[in-house]
């Protein structure tokens, strides 16, 4: 990948990771997790693993929904 893009998406991923770690609100954490995934998927695509990218990007929301089940209970 072009260095500038690596930097850009690396930054997105790091930003997502750090904010997931630091944000205290559960919904905020989940959304930050989405940012982390958004930073990571381009790296997978760039390596040429499109099938993996498809699977990963379909499984990621499933994980989120599982997590939301727990978040929901914790909030209620």
């Amino acid at each position, binding site marked *: 990948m072009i260095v500038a893009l690596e930097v850009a998406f690396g930054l997105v991923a790091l930003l997502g990771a750090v904010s997931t770690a630091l944000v205290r609100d559960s919904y905020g954490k989940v959304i930050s997790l989405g940012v982390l995934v958004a930073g990571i998927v381009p790296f997978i695509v760039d390596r*040429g*693993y*499109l*099938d*993996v990218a498809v699977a990963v990007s379909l499984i990621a929301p499933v994980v989120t929904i599982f997590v939301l089940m727990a978040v929901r209970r914790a909030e209620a």
Partner: protein
Amino acid sequence: MLIITRISRFVSNFQNLVALFAGACIIISLAGILSLPLGFEEQQLYPKTLDPASSLYPYDRGGVPFGTTEVVVQYPENSPYAGYVTAYLTPLSQYLADHTHYLGTTIVAHPGGIIDEILYNTRGLDTVVETSILFAAFAIASYLFRREVK
């Protein structure tokens, strides 16, 4: 003597067991960090060769279907058909390989590929044990679950 009694009291409570083990692991981890750097042996079993141009990327290990492929194994004499699976493609995966370029993982995961070769053939016993672990763990879980429900 007092300190011994205190240690005994700590050890005797099984709630502290995890802490004890974790402490031991921390010590070993520190030892591990101190023993760095460790040299990486270049002569590995089943080495990777990457060929981005292949439609089987990253698992293209060469070879002809139903023929042999060179695979570095520990005991070649024990698996006379080592390398056959690597080169094998089912009709579906053959079709995918002919028509697309970025589906290497799917194609190789479909039966017949280097990972299948390792998991089922040369190191098949690993897989036997591993499925047994899954089996045992699941047996425990389902036994407990069903007993509760009844």
